[in-house]
Each structure stands twice: as structure tokens, then as C-alpha cells.
């Protein structure tokens, strides 16, 4: 029952995002969510919050200090993890957002996002055993045959077993085109699987009696490249005569990671003895398209990993800054006066406010994107549903990358505020900094998402997704003016939106004219520009709600004033970067393009 002083997230901010910003309770008008309302949302978020603070968080440091070990042929997880798993499963985390037909609770992803943020902030590794299992089970739910749906899927959703994503191979990381694992049909309808996978998170453990690896492999005779990759469910142990027997899946190595140390990452060998069986999921050669259909949710999850990891560190540094006495006010150097807590220094507040702007902007971003996922899947109105789907696709690369990139900076600031103590492993900020780094690498690197955003998303459907964003920005600007938000903030956002629209036209025209290199050269810079624009919009929106909130009697003034300061900070310091980045993208600066390998 050891409670923590670190709140992980601000409960008030979670309430603000869910209800004041996203009107989450309105989702219950949709048939999919009709069994829900605030009377189920609030208690569930409260349970997740309490579990995160009282149970998951106290286990974070021990699990970071002694990672999972390879003993003999298998992985032994930290003993605390064995206590956490049944409790986390018991909360209903794994199948929360899945329909009742598969044993789920049909919870909107928007609300699950709030609940999961607490779990991730408390103990990212522990949460991810569940997150990966949801992903694996969802793949079977969406594309598996009746056999897989009745045998393995329920065991995943119930947490009896866990699941993994076995995509990456030593020669095929970002480039899944090069997957080389083979699948050979067997007379009984299963497939003999043979190959090597690497960086498989949760790929072996002693937490549950079995695991299912959702594995990409190539059927014999399949076309070369991405269109010859199929998806298989490959169990660690298969059932024979009612018993679980080894399925010739072996741990060939355990990665010594710098973060996420509670969750083992493994190299796995499939079929070294010629006795590994896989079950085809869906149709042959469609593996990648199946994975793509799951990717929005996986990427929203990684975005939330980033936000949560930044948030827990932000709150740690905030508490530290309020407690740590050091120095005196600038104009009061009297050494006989007591020192002041460092939060009294404006530059420390700068670092705290930057973290707040990144973290709370990131939470709003991921939660908003999750809401688009809910609407894209469950909205009844066909047009609104289509629109949400386009918006979701556009925002996904931002929701995935912004928390990872800006979150890393936020985590570094949390460490900075701790000074010399922050640079020691006695304090936790260094651990969260290590954890955060993975989020710009897995589930598509930042570079990949830059290409995805510029090459596919903003130019999709003749630019319709971008138009949707611009319309939303225009609406927010109008509401901000009506609410009395500083006119200069509104104008700046309008200008940045126009500038971005113009830039997309320009780059799109380059692409159309065949100059793909000219269009795509600065795709990562474009992703940065676009992320800043989107998050600035979300901050103007929050500032608007804060103004409206302050106008009401008995308002939560401190909370709303804090929102206004963070919005002002973001618009004053970050939004202007859009100018420079837009100029860079337009100029087609060729410094790194013409730089040659030999010149480094």
C-alpha cells in the first residue's frame, strides 16, 4: 500500500482533457459505447490511477535495477512482475476497449488513453506486457479464423497468455520488405516456420505458461518484397493431446537495453530443429496490410508511452523544485536570509513551464487522436466517420513522434532541474530519460514518420485531411477570439496555418512534377513544423477553454491561469519556429543531401 508522492499525472488535467476538451461523455451517444457514461469512465480511471500509484510505481525502480534475466533456455522476469500481472489483468486493462463479444468492455479508446497514461507513467515495462497482448489478440480478432478466435484469442484477452509482435529481423528493421523468415505448408494445414527475429519485446518470460508471437514470414514461392509477407500466429508451446508441448521457438539472445528494463527484448530462433508450427492469420501475402490496419492504435500507444514518461518526470522535477532550497532572489543577496526553493527562480520556472507545455500538449494530442480513432471505428454518421478516419491518419505520425522527440527534451529538463543529483542514478529522472529514447525508434522511427506524413498523409485524398485540420484550426481561432484570448496568439496561429498550407502546395507541386527528392528532402523538418502547428492549435484551444472557465463564478483559477501561461509560452517560443522550418523546407537547402559519405 506504499503510496507515492509523485502523482504521475495531474488528475485535474486528465479531467480537463477528457471532459472539457474532448467531451468524452458525448461518445456514449454512439451504440458501441451505450453501456458507458461518466459513471463508468470515472471509476475506471480512478482504479487505474490508484493501481498505478500504489502498486505499479513502487515496483518501477526495482524492475529497472534488476532487468529480466536469461536463465538456461528461458527468461526469468523480476519477481515483482509476477505479483503485478494478475492484478493488472484483473483491472480489465487488456480487453477494455474490445467489444463484449470477445469479452471486452467496449470502453472508448479516449478513456482508455487516460487510464493507460497512469499505468505507463508508473511503470512502462509492466504496462507493455498488457499492451502487446492487446495488440496480438486484436490482430487475431480482426483477421484470424474461427479456430484462432476460439482457442487463443480468449486466452490472450483474459491474460492467461501474453502476445508479442515478431516483425523485426536482423536485416529487416525499418525495412520490412526484407523479411526472410520462411513458412512452408504442412499437410495438416499449419505451416513450418523457420527464421530469426530480433528485438522482440516480451518475447519470452515465465509470467504465463504460454505466449503467441504474431510473426511476419514469407510463404514458399511468395512474391519478393512487401507483397509476399504473410502473418502467422506462432505459439511458444503448441497443444498436443490436451497438453502444451514446446513449439521449437528458442531464445537466442537477450538484448541489454538502456531503458524499458522490466520488459525483456529478445532474439528468437524459430524452427531451428525443424519443428516450429505457425497458423496463418487471414490470407496469404497480406501480412503487412494487416499490420498497417493495427498501426494507428499501436502508434497512439507509443505516443502515449512518450507523454507518460515525460509526465512522470515533470511531476518529479516540479516536486523537487518546490522542495530544494538554493540561492536567493536576484535582488536580495543577503546571505543571512534563508535560501529560497529553486521554483522561485524564473529560469527554473522556464524549464518547468516548457515541460508542462510539452507534456500537457502531448496528452491533449494523443487523447484527441484516440478520439478520432473511436469516431473512425464507431461513428454512426457515415460522413463524420470518414472524416474522423482521415483526421486520424493525418495526426497519427504526429501523435507518435511529437511525444518521443519533444518528450525526450522534456525528460532532459526534468533531469536538469535536479542538478548534480539528477546526473546520478540515485534519482529517477535519468531512468525515464533512458526509457523515453526508445519512443523515437520503435513503431517507426521519427524519420519514417516524417516520410509518412509528407509523402502520404498530407497529400492524401487531394489534400482533404489537411483541409480538415485547417478547418478545425479556423474554428478554434474564432472561438478563441470570442472568448477574449489575446488577439496576437490567434493571429500567429492563423499565419502559421496559412504558411503550412502554402508549403504543402509547394512541396506537393514538386512531387507532382517528378522532383520527389526535392519534395521529400526535408520531410523530418516538415514533421517538426507540422507537429508544432498541431500542438499550437491544441494549446490555443486549451487557452480558449481556460478563458471561458475563468469567466465562470467559482472557477478553478490556478488551474486555468496555469493553462494560459503554458499556452502563452508555447505560442511565444515554439510556434515562431514554423517560420524558420517552412523557409528551410522551401529553400531545399542541400547541405546533407550533397554531403558525401567520405567527407564525414
Amino acid at each position, binding site marked *: 500500500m506504499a503510496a507515492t508522492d509523485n502523482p504521475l499525472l495531474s488528475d485535474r488535467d486528465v479531467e480537463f482533457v477528457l471532459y472539457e476538451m474532448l467531451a468524452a461523455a458525448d461518445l456514449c451517444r454512439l451504440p458501441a459505447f451505450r453501456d458507458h457514461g461518466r459513471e*463508468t469512465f470515472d*471509476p475506471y480511471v480512478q482504479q487505474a490511477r*490508484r493501481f498505478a500509484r500504489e502498486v505499479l510505481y513502487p515496483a518501477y525502480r526495482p524492475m529497472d535495477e534488476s532487468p529480466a534475466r536469461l536463465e538456461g533456455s528461458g527468461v526469468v522476469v523480476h519477481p515483482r512482475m509476477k505479483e503485478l500481472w494478475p492484478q493488472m489483468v484483473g*483491472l480489465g486493462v487488456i480487453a*477494455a476497449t474490445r467489444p463484449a463479444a470477445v469479452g471486452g468492455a467496449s470502453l472508448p479508446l479516449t478513456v482508455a488513453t487516460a487510464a493507460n497514461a497512469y499505468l505507463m507513467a508508473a511503470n512502462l515495462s509492466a504496462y507493455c506486457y498488457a499492451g502487446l497482448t492487446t495488440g496480438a489478440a486484436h490482430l487475431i480478432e480482426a483477421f484470424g479464423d474461427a479456430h484462432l478466435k476460439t482457442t487463443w484469442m480468449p486466452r490472450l484477452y483474459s491474460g492467461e497468455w501474453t502476445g508479442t509482435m515478431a516483425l523485426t529481423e536482423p536485416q529487416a528493421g525499418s525495412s520490412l520488405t526484407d523479411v526472410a523468415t520462411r513458412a512452408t505448408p504442412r499437410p495438416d494445414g499449419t505451416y513450418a516456420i523457420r527464421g530469426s527475429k530480433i528485438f522482440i519485446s516480451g518475447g519470452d518470460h515465465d509470467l504465463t505458461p504460454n505466449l503467441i508471437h504474431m510473426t511476419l514470414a514469407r510463404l514458399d514461392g511468395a512474391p519478393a518484397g512487401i507483397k509476399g509477407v504473410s502473418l502467422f500466429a506462432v505459439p511458444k508451446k503448441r497443444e498436443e493431446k490436451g497438453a502444451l508441448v514446446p513449439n521449437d521457438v528458442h531464445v537466442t539472445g537477450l538484448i541489454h537495453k538502456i531503458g524499458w528494463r522490466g520488459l525483456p527484448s529478445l532474439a528468437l530462433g524459430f524452427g531451428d530443429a525443424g519443428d516450429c508450427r505457425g497458423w496463418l492469420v487471414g490470407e496469404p501475402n497480406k501480412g503487412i496490410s494487416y499490420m498497417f490496419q493495427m498501426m494507428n492504435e499501436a502508434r497512439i500507444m507509443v505516443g502515449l508511452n512518450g507523454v507518460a514518461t515525460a509526465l512522470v518526470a515533470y511531476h518529479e522535477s516540479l516536486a523537487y523544485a518546490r522542495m530544494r532550497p538554493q540561492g536567493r532572489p536576484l535582488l536580495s543577496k543577503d546571505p543571512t536570509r534563508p535560501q529560497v526553493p529553486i521554483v522561485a527562480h524564473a529560469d527554473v520556472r522556464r524549464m518547468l513551464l516548457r515541460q508542462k507545455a510539452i507534456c500537457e500538449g502531448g496528452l491533449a494530442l494523443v487523447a484527441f487522436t484516440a478520439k478520432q480513432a473511436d469516431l473512425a471505428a464507431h461513428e454512426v454518421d457515415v460522413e463524420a466517420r470518414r472524416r474522423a478516419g482521415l483526421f486520424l491518419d493525418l495526426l497519427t505520425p504526429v501523435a507518435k513522434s511529437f511525444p518521443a522527440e519533444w518528450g525526450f527534451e522534456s525528460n532532459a529538463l526534468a533531469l536538469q532541474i535536479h542538478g548534480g543529483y539528477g546526473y546520478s542514478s540515485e534519482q529517477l529522472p535519468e531512468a525515464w530519460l533512458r526509457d523515453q529514447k526508445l519512443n523515437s525508434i520503435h513503431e517507426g522511427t521519427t524519420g519514417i514518420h516524417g516520410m509518412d506524413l509528407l509523402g502520404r498523409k498530407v497529400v492524401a485524398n487531394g489534400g482533404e485531411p489537411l483541409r480538415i485540420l485547417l478547418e478545425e484550426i479556423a474554428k478554434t481561432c474564432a472561438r478563441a477570439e470570442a472568448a477574449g484570448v489575446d488577439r496576437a496568439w490567434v493571429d500567429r496561429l492563423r499565419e502559421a496555418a496559412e504558411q503550412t498550407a502554402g508549403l504543402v502546395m509547394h512541396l506537393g507541386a514538386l512531387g507532382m512534377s517528378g522532383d520527389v527528392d526535392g519534395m521529400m528532402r526535408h520531410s523530418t523538418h516538415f514533421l517538426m513544423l507540422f507537429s508544432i502547428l498541431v500542438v499550437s492549435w491544441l494549446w490555443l484551444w486549451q487557452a480558449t477553454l481556460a478563458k471561458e472557465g475563468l469567466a465562470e463564478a467559482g472557477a478553478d483559477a490556478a488551474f486555468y491561469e496555469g493553462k494560459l501561461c503554458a499556452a502563452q509560452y508555447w505560442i511565444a517560443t515554439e510556434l515562431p519556429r514554423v517560420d524558420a522550418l517552412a523557409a528551410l523546407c522551401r529553400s531545399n537547402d542541400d547541405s546533407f543531401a550533397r554531403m558525401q559519405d567520405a567527407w564525414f
Partner: protein
Amino acid sequence: MKILVPLKRVSDPDNANKIKVGAGKVETTGLEWKPNPFDEYAVETALRLTENGTNAKARLGEVTVVTFGPKETETTLRAALATGADKAIRVDTTDDAIDGDLLARALKALVEREKPDLVLLGKQQVDGDANQVAQLLAEYLGWPQATFAGQITSEADKALLVSREVDGGSIKLRVTLPAVVSVDLRIVNAVGVTSMHTPPTHKYSDGVRFAALMAIMAAKKKSLTEVKLTDLSPDTALKIKYTGFDLPPARKAGVKIKTVAELVQKLKTEAKVL
């Protein structure tokens, strides 16, 4: 076994309490509310006594939770239903209209109506800290009582062996049912409750259980009835009247003392403790 658990929402102890000068009460608008922690321990105890811990979903008894308060306190009851309680009763009233004695008299009437084998309560509320209701209720019912239970062993659902937390150790009492028992913090340890239904090898997690999402949804459909306070106790006169509330006076700054002689002097003349 049928168990009745009275519970109450209290203002979050982390709130900064606001005192309206001269108002004779604590300002409650804008406060965060949470269930009284000792009441949550009582619910957890009741659940452990009425289940097999290895298969907690199959109920082997009945736990009724009751609260006294306005409509919005039903949130507290639903939360208890979500953790496993079977039904709930809300006695419609407000905090200002009840005190410990009226509560005990109303509970007595409710006990006569519901006929539980056991009334389990938190040892006290963390807002008023009065620690009276369990004792008064036992007296009014003429039932045996055991307060501050840190450990309970159920003996064939006929009697309870209760280890009470007292200064300097614990006292063991055997109470035959029906009885009134109030619980202390330690009751929710992994081995706080020993029930005949749960194998002795089973270890509970420390603390009160978490409500599963599915149980939160199912709790919406469980029975929650409303009763009027006057139906339970036509006499609603209060024995406790609050005359005023004030914040504790701010501490005065200390002084630095140079010599031992000066210290002794001050202890004699100012503090007057020597």
C-alpha cells in the same frame, strides 16, 4: 452470512479545508470527496468473509452497503458495488442533519429491517474522528461488539475471533453473531481475515481490492434503494451541536537563546514549566 456495512464519503484529507468565519461549519463547496478509508477496509473485510478468495466472483454471502447522504453520495455506493458488494441503500439526508447518535439509532432500525448477522464499520471517519457509531449501535441493539479489529477469524459463521488493536498490543475477543465489529487498518493485510470459505494457503493482496472494469459496468445494474431518514428514525434531534470552527492559531516565531541560564530563566518565567 449477511453483512451490513455503513460507509460515508469524506472530504479528501489532502484538501485545504476552508473555514467560513462565524459560519459554524466547514465550507464544503468545491471539496474533493473520497470514501472514508476505514469504511473501505470494512467493505474489504465483509467481502473476504463472504467469498472463497480463490474464486471471488462466486458470492457465498451477502454484503449490503448503506450510506447517509444526498443523491451524489450514490457514487460512493456504486464504487462499493463495483468492488463486489451485493446491494446498496442510501438514506436520504445531509451531513449537517446527522450526528453519531442519530446515525446509530437509524442504523438500528435498518438492522431490524435487513436482519444482517454482522454489522461491520470503519473504526472512525477521518473527517469528524468521533469514533462513536459502532459502540452506540451495539448498545442500542444489545449486541456484542468488538472495535478496532486488526484481525478476524470467522468460526463457522457462528462467531468471530477478533484481534483488537489496543495500546501496547492486541486483545482477542470471541463474539457470537449477530455482532457489531469496527475495523482498523491492519485488517486489510494479506492475512487480516480468515474465513471458513477460503483455503488457508490463499494470500490476499495487501490493501483493498481494485474494481475491474467489467464489475464497474455490472455495478450499474445492482440494486440501490433509497430510504427516508424519518422512516428509520422519526426522532431526528441531534445530540451534538457545533458552535463554531476556527483555524488553529498561527505559530509564533521562535527566539534564539544565547546561554543555558537564559534558557532556564525563560522556561521558568515564560513557559512556566519549571
